[in-house]
């Protein structure tokens, strides 16, 4: 059983006990503990259940690579699933629960899957849930969804805040072990701006645990001195609890800083996302120990040898009283020695190498530890914890030589450099046969804008696992980073002298024992988190999943949070072996950022709630808000949809606004309307290319409705163009389209007709625009006075400039409602005053502000199209019966050639018509008109669809527009529109102009 040792623990403060809760139990650890070390110290080895088989699981590792000990952390607005106990710093009041079990961690019903595991092989889901098809929706999917996923999703909004931080530096060093510290010092001494980040709360990495010496000092002391030295350098920044999450194009990197995870509720942001642009990135990310593949290697109590050592040295925790060590390399002997020194029993070191190890092995033997050479653990025994191990020859098939009782097994299959950051942006790897590992290929680094490599791997992350070569490589990496940036490296000082025992070479072991049969292989885990075993990968290979990327997806090896940290090499080796090829031929799967999961909060940063995106406001917005308008988003604007009064519903408010406008006087804030000036000697020519109509013939003082298409012919925007003078046009665009239309103009001007003398200016926000609409609109303008608006001198589609009610105004006589109507544009700063003046002068006429819904209904009553309703990016003007607005005389306009293509000219294209329901009801938006028969997919054939549909208060019935096959030729025909609930609504094809067809109201 795991327990807290009476002494030891370099990271904990025994004077400061910390209380926390796990699955409701109140427990105590020490300041400096991780949740995992505290739980182990409390005798809690079982920390979760596995994903697929719900097998009991304890921690395998002591750091970021941990696959098993994932917990639900916190409560309420601070609840978060899938937090690694091994990287969660303990704090007072921490609350955690284990995942993937029901009803409890100790007794889990789903564990029956283990017994069924021979029926749940690789690809089980694909094989089992294929047919019959209807079962998928009603049976399989609900079942899989229920049993899938790791932790629970939070149910409350995140109580914390987060921030982004932009940073620029010459050299980013990721990893604060001895290699990262030394590389940072080399770069710092040369004067480079250096950022050094370390994902844990401590500098020094593994060196202090390994007990080696540097420059005659204990590694821990050397680390303290170099950190002090770095802290004194003004050009060097150091960040603990900050992980290098990803490396991207051209030296861009993300850092993930956990500021208050260990101090919940403290002031300031919880996480900070560093968005870094670095000249060079030194990855000193160390190496991760590999598990050994033997049967029962997932039983709680089996863990990495380095982790067992970490728990003892860092946190004063023993993982068991009798710890068997099994290895294929020398490093695990360090664990045996540490445990022995801590007073624990190490019954044996099982070394797969026939010749055994080097100096460390000799020290172990000298310490009285039994060393078994050329031997293997054939099988770990136990259920919820390890009880013993069956020992066999490594070379054999697993025949038992003896059984050793133990309550923990520390295993080491060698070390894999952490190459993730090197690989994120395309850095390639090469296979190192001697070390049995992939390491960065220095000739194929990720490249920057200048074509030079911008990532330099250093130390163990570069495949240099021995302390002496780690230090040499790191110093070189730091110096290289600055010299590649054009600086002069500081005069090389003496390389720190490493004192570490000579190590014998490792012996690659991919299966233990080598000849293990199916029974043992099907109990040997490769990927703990996803429950992938040696037998699964072999099965995948046998079934033809030979590509490593296919095998990964088929078996789920290395997916989820693992991302190849623990399972990668063992899985690749198993696949290679089964395929009878070599590991480098199989290759690796793609390493993708982030290195370990980062919070959604950190990704979102400040972009949340009101700061999610800026909201554009018209000069009259305050009035709308004070009036209690109901708003709808239009682009980045918020436009009043309607202005409900008293207890009115929105529908009632809209009807009232329409009645008032058609009956007397309505006012609309149209400031959001796009306004773009096009000016210059070639402006007429340019306008003729932009619009489908002839705009060059428009006279100053006149307006014309125009259509704008994209080069592939589709209608993209519409609006009224006013010619200001010979060289200047004012183009009105849709509210949402102003920016894209302006960009469209600029694109053509800059990239196609760059010799044309034209410039454009988007003046949308320079003007407030107000529509004054209804039979009394002329009267209210006359009351304001200053511009002659008489029917004779100011005709429909005229515009004029003048001083209206004391304000410089551009007045347009245009109508989107079919009423006598004007739009007045005034400087934005005068907008609110003019709005108030119109309300005052209009009081006697019952002036009624109306919103976008009334605007929409009134335009639909008149059969006017709306971009985004009648158009969807596949509709051409000809579909909408707008041929009258397409010039036949012009030889060219943007979209003209495309509209000549056979499909565009096809008479079978659906055309715009009005639709009138037989029963007067309102058609559902987007409903399809069905035709006889079924298509190749067995779906009902369709012959049209609804594009706009409203209740018209003017007509007292539902009205709609739609695109219908041969529509204009089928007036009076009745179509069937099935609703989602199966009921069918019948509608008659009619003319799309429902109201005042002759324009008598408009042209008064």
């Amino acid at each position: 059983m795991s327990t807290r040792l009476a002494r030891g623990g370099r990271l904990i403060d025994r004077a400061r006990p910390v209380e926390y809760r796990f699955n409701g139990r109140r427990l105590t650890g020490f300041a400096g503990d991780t949740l995992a070390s505290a739980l182990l110290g409390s005798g809690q080895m079982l920390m979760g259940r596995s994903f697929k088989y719900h097998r009991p699981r304890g921690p395998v590792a002591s750091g970021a690579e941990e696959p098993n000990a994932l917990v639900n952390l916190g409560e309420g607005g601070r609840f978060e699933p899938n937090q690694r106990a091994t990287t969660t710093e303990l704090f007072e009041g921490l609350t955690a629960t284990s995942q993937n079990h029901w009803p409890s961690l100790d007794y889990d019903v789903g564990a029956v899957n283990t017994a069924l595991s021979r029926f749940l092989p690789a690809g089980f889901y694909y094989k089992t849930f294929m047919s019959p098809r209807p079962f998928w929706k009603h049976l399989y999917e609900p079942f899989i969804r229920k049993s899938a996923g790791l932790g629970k999703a939070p149910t409350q909004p995140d109580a914390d805040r987060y921030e982004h931080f932009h940073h620029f530096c010459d050299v980013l060093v990721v990893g604060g072990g001895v290699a990262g510290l030394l590389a940072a010092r080399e770069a710092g001494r040369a004067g480079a701006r250096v950022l050094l980040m370390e994902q844990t709360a401590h500098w020094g990495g593994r060196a202090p645990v390994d007990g080696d010496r540097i420059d005659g000092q204990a590694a821990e002391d050397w680390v303290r001195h170099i950190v002090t030295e770095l802290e004194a350098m003004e050009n060097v920044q150091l960040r603990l609890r900050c992980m290098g999450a990803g490396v991207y194009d051209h030296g861009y990197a993300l850092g993930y800083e956990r500021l208050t995870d260990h101090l919940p509720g403290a002031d300031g942001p919880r996480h900070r996302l560093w968005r870094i642009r670095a000249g060079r990135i030194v990855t000193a990310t160390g190496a991760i120990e590999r598990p050994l593949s033997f049967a029962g290697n997932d039983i709680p109590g089996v863990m990495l040898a380095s982790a067992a050592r970490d728990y003892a040295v860092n946190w004063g925790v023993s993982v068991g009283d009798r710890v068997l060590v099994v290895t294929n390399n020398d490093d695990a002997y360090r664990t045996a020695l540490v445990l022995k020194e801590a007073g624990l029993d190490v019954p044996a070191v099982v070394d797969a190498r026939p010749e055994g190890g080097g100096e460390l092995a000799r020290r172990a033997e000298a310490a009285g530890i039994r060393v078994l050479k050329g031997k293997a653990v054939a099988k770990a025994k136990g259920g919820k914890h390890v009880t013993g191990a069956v020992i066999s020859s490594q070379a054999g098939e697993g025949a038992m030589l003896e059984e050793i009782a133990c309550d923990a097994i520390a295993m080491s299959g060698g070390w894999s450099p952490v190459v993730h950051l090197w690989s994120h942006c395309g850095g390639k790897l090469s296979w190192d046969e001697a070390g049995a590992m992939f390491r960065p290929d220095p000739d194929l680094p990720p490249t920057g804008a200048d074509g030079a490599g911008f990532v330099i791997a250093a130390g163990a992350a570069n495949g240099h696992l021995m302390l002496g070569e780690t230090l040499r490589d790191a110093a070189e990496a730091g110096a290289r980073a600055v010299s590649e940036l054009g600086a002069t490296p500081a005069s090389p000082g003496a390389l720190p002298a490493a004192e570490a025992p000579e190590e014998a070479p490792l012996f690659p072991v991919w299966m233990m024992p080598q000849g293990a049969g199916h029974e043992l292989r099907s109990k040997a885990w490769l990927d703990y988190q996803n429950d992938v075993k040696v037998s699964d990968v072999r099965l995948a290979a046998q079934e033809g999943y030979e590509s490593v990327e296919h095998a990964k997806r088929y078996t789920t090896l290395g997916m989820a949070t693992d991302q190849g940290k623990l399972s990668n090499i063992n899985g690749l080796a198993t696949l290679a072996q089964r395929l009878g090829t070599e590991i480098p031929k199989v290759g690796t799967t793609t390493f993708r950022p982030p290195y370990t999961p980062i919070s959604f909060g950190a990704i979102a940063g400040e972009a949340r709630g009101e700061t999610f995106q800026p909201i554009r406001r018209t000069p009259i917005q305050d009035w709308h808000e004070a009036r209690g308008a109901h708003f709808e988003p239009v682009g980045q604007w918020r436009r009043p949809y309607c202005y409900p009064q008293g207890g009115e519903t929105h529908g009632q408010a809209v009807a009232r606004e329409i009645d008032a406008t058609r009956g007397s006087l309505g006012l609309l804030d149209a400031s959001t309307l796009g306004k773009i000036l096009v000016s210059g000697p070639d402006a007429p020519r340019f306008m003729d290319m932009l619009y489908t109509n002839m705009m060059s013939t428009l006279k100053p003082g006149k307006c014309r409705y125009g259509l704008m298409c994209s080069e592939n012919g589709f209608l993209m925007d519409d609006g009224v163009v006013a010619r200001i003078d010979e060289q200047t046009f004012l183009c009105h665009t849709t509210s949402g389209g102003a920016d894209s239309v302006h960009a469209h103009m600029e694109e053509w001007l800059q990239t196609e007709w760059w010799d044309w003398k034209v410039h454009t200016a988007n003046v949308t926000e320079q003007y407030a625009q107000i529509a004054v609409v209804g039979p009394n609109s002329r009267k209210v303008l006359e009351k304001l006075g200053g511009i002659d608006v008489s029917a004779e001198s100011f005709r429909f589609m005229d515009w004029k400039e003048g001083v209206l009610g004391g304000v410089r105004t551009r007045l347009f006589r245009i109508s989107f409602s079919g009423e006598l109507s004007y739009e007045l544009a005034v400087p934005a700063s005068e907008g609110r005053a003019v709005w108030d003046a119109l309300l005052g002068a209009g009081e006697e006429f019952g002036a009624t502000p109306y919103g976008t819904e009334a605007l929409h209904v009134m335009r639909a009553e008149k059969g006017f199209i709306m971009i985004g309703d009648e158009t969807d990016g596949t509709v051409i003007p000809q579909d909408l019966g707008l041929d009258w607005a397409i010039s036949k005389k012009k030889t060219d306009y943007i979209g003209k050639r495309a509209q000549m293509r056979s499909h565009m000219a096809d008479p079978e294209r659906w055309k715009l018509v009005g639709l009138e329901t037989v029963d007067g009801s309102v058609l559902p938006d987007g409903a399809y008109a069905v035709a006889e028969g079924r298509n190749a997919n067995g779906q009902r054939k369709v012959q049209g669809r609804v594009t706009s549909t409203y209740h018209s208060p003017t007509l007292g019935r539902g009205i709609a527009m739609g695109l219908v096959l041969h529509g204009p030729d089928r007036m009076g025909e009745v179509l069937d529109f099935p609703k989602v609930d199966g009921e069918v609504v019948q509608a008659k094809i009619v003319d799309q102009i429902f109201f005042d067809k002759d324009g008598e109201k408009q042209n008064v």
Partner: protein
Amino acid sequence: MLILTCPCCGVTAEETEFHGGGEAHLTRHGPDSDDDQFHDYLFMRENPRGVHFERWRHVYGCGKWFHAARDTVTLEVFGTYPAQTTEPPQHIREAISARRPGWSWRGLS
């Protein structure tokens, strides 16, 4: 996230300041072109592993369109130049040749 230099205003900036505009040096085909020519102009694009010419706009800067010569695999940028040209200028071609001898792209080399 790329770094690009706008040849108009001279600013070297993050990709988020720019907006990509697809392949550069397309020749517009209007109403007098035949179906195949127009189809190719509208839809057919290069998709090279290696040297490529792209259009970019400095949207959150000077607003100008420009062209970039870039390697789609290594992300190396050989140079940027104003969009008011129908083919890459000589100094850009030389810069590419210096790094990728023997390159070719849509008949250019």
